[in-house]
């Protein structure tokens, strides 16, 4: 009997997950320790075998093992090694295996780190993790198996190659980060279901999943941003977000995950929103499954590659089962999820967080509606109507503006009840700063109301953070007799959750400024030039120096050399070299843009192609040829990426104390001192 090791390991991983579920449920429901321990072993082995199966697929790609149909479809001998590795997730089968593996590895880590988890809770978490992973392993093994073999007498010596659009450095890390984000949310989901099943409904499951939730959120955030960066530099349309269904599919769980991160603070502090938090944990996981359905069913048109397979319906069935089981469980435990307190005032942090959650969910609902509208319209009228970016912008921009306002207010308003006088004290300076900026922009152009309000609110958020930081540093410097600067830096070490969160908000405010500026003041121009021609775009003057063609490893190129000057000046401030590449093997072409990035703006040039007749094309005389270009000037674009880095930095600051010790936060000596100091009067 001939055994394929990769496929065998995948089958074993699936068997382990099946056994882990059955033994886990038996052990938890009958309180049989041996069965629970056996289930935990199965989950660890599930992670190990999934990983080894993925490694086997990676080895097949690196060694060009074209016995496998999937390897043949997604790689060839001319591809560089890193892109051969990224080809693992270049198609449906490999990306499903990657997804299942990440999920299995998260489950494995949870079991390893379970020593501080209450027994009753953990015994139910294991079978939930096992069955959640079981589904993805089953889809990979039975429906999209990447180890499917080509008949021995037909094995090719070279492969078809990967989609050239995916041969980009961003694609080496963007999909894995996205998948780590998606699969990471299976941990809070499993703990939530485990808590519901075991009736261990204190705040423990939230505290225990704080780390995994933040890690998942961090990975998803970075994954989404990297996707935007890839779109910006690779697709040649001058933007980073097009409200494409696949982009939206990743955005939906991010929105509910963000809502969850905020609302758990209300439960931890005030014992409220318990049903809401359980629902959000489940909804976030469910949305990752919905995203998979959207991207893999082919029912919604997308520029992304994974559509048009026949496995979508399986995800839909899984999603339906998931929702029904979750709703039944929450209803079953409804009495145990009653809040310990009620909202006392409209002006309180818990109210602000609740509104923040409602706005995030409204954005999520509007986006999901836009994505699924083609299905709804087809069901109702028989015709598939698609909604584009104008719909998403019209609905979501006002909601984002409301969110920015709450982002400024929420973290600074007092818990329970804030008086109007304290609100005035806290917010007067940020409020006036934001208002002045809004007024200035409205005076400059009264038609751009959203732009003015958006800039004003971004400044409002930055000003609230600055004021809070200054106040806290000053207060601490009085207590500790240190300088405000030293105290300010110490704040990050003492209260990383709070100040890391502020850093994240600061990054979002910076991103908001960049997005608003690049949307409102973008300059776009299509034109043709021949060698020596000059053209003015915005404050720049462009001159086509030369056109050239050539041959690279597995593609041919047409490139242009464009000199850049400031309008009215003779000094060349930069040279841009946009390219057009053609991959004969896959008969696909790509646009390689060139960008001159400055703090003020991005000058973005894409070479659309040659503007010549067929007879001229045959001779390919590039000296007199005209080339078509697309040029964009995107103001403050670089700040989008800077803001994203600040968000990442803030997330790392928040994560730092959670990583060591891995579960829970030690109360610092200084915190104890402060309470004792007050107790002493």
């Amino acid at each position, binding site marked *: 009997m*001939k*055994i394929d*090791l990769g496929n065998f390991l995948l089958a*074993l991983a699936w068997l*382990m997950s099946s056994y882990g579920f059955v*033994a886990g449920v038996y*052990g938890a429901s009958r309180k049989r*320790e041996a*069965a*629970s*321990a*056996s*289930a*935990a*072993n*199965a989950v660890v*082995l599930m992670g190990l*075998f999934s990983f080894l199966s993925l490694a086997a697929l990676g080895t097949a790609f690196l060694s060009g093992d074209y016995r496998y149909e999937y390897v043949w479809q997604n790689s060839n001998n001319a591809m560089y090694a890193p892109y051969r590795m990224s080809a693992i997730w270049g198609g449906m089968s490999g990306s499903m295996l990657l997804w299942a593996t990440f999920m299995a590895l998260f489950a494995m880590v949870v*079991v390893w780190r*379970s*020593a*501080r*988890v*209450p*027994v*009753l*809770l*953990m*015994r139910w978490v*294991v079978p939930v993790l096992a069955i959640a992973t079981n589904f993805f392993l089953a889809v990979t093994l039975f429906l999209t198996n990447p180890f499917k073999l080509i008949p021995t007498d037909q094995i090719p010596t070279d492969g078809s190659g990967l989609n050239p659009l995916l041969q980009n450095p961003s694609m080496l890390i963007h999909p894995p980060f996205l998948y780590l984000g998606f699969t990471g949310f299976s941990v809070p989901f499993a703990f939530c279901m485990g808590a519901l099943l075991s009736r*261990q409904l*204190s*705040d*423990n499951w939230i*505290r225990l999943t704080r780390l995994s939730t933040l890690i998942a959120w961090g990975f998803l955030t970075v994954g989404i941003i990297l996707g935007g960066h890839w779109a910006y530099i690779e697709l040649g349309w001058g933007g980073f977000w097009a409200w494409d269904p696949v982009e939206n599919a990743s955005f939906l769980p991010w929105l509910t995950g963000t809502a969850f991160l905020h609302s758990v603070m209300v439960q*931890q*502090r005030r014992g409220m929103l318990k049903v809401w938090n359980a629902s959000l944990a489940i909804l976030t996981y469910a949305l990752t499954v919905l995203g998979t359905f959207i991207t893999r069913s082919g029912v919604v048109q997308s520029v992304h590659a994974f559509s048009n397979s026949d496995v979508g319906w399986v995800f839909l069935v899984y999603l339906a089962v998931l929702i029904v089981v979750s709703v039944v469980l929450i209803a079953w435990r409804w009495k145990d999820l009653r809040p310990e307190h009620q909202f006392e005032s409209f002006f309180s942090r818990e109210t602000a967080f609740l509104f923040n959650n409602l706005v995030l969910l409204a954005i999520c609902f509007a986006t999901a509606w836009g994505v699924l509208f083609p299905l709804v319209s087809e069901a109702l009228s028989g015709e598939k109507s698609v909604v584009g970016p104008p719909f998403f912008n019209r609905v979501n921009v006002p909601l984002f503006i409301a969110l920015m306002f709450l982002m400024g207010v929420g973290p*600074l308003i*007092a*818990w*329970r*009840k804030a*008086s109007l006088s*304290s609100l005035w*004290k*806290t917010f007067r300076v940020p409020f006036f700063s934001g208002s002045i900026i809004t007024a200035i922009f409205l005076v400059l152009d009264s038609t751009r109301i959203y732009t003015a309000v958006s800039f004003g609110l971004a400044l409002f958020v930055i000003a609230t953070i600055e004021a809070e930081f200054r*106040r*806290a540093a000053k207060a*601490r410097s*009085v207590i500790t007799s240190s300088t405000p600067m030293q105290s300010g830096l110490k704040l990050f070490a003492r209260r990383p959750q709070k100040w890391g969160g502020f850093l994240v908000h600061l990054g979002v405010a910076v991103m908001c400024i960049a997005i608003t500026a690049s949307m409102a003041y973008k300059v776009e121009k299509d034109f043709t030039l021949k060698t020596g021609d000059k053209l003015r775009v915005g404050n720049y003057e462009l001159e086509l120096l030369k056109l050239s063609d050539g041959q690279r490893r597995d593609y041919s190129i047409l490139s242009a050399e464009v000199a850049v000057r400031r309008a009215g000046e003779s000094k060349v401030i930069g040279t841009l070299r946009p390219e057009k590449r053609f991959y004969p093997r896959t008969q696909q072409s790509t646009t390689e843009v060139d960008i001159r990035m400055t703090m003020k703006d991005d000058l973005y040039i894409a070479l659309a192609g040659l503007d010549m007749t067929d007879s001229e094309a045959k001779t390919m005389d590039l000296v007199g040829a005209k080339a078509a270009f697309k040029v964009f000037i995107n103001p403050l674009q670089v700040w989008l990426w800077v803001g994203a880095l600040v968000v990442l930095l803030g997330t790392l600051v928040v994560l730092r104390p959670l990583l060591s010790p891995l579960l829970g936060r030690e*109360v610092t000596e200084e*915190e*104890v001192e*402060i*309470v*004792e100091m*007050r*107790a*002493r*009067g």
Partner: protein
Amino acid sequence: MIEIFVTMLSVVIAFAAGMALVFPFFVAGVTFPRSAAGDDTKSDNSIRQDAYLQALEDLEMDFRSGKLPEAEYQASRQQLLEEAALLKLSAAVPLTPAPADAGEPIGASISGSVKSQ
């Protein structure tokens, strides 16, 4: 030759996996998880104590930085300390004898208990 090796390896892996699954049924004392806490009531109380500590600290900082007026600060603080005292009672931890100002020792008691953890 390679095929025989792969087949042998597969058999060994499957056998080892099977052993790992049945091991807990035949060896006494294997438990999962190796946690001291049976249910989460106890750890829940410590989380809440932690939360009250943090709330008291936030309140303190807000007051010291001039964000809160004295009356609002005192009222919020008293409420926090009363809730913390109730938590202490529910955890069945003996309280120190009630002094004149009931709030202060309870705050210290909470901090002490968290410190000792």
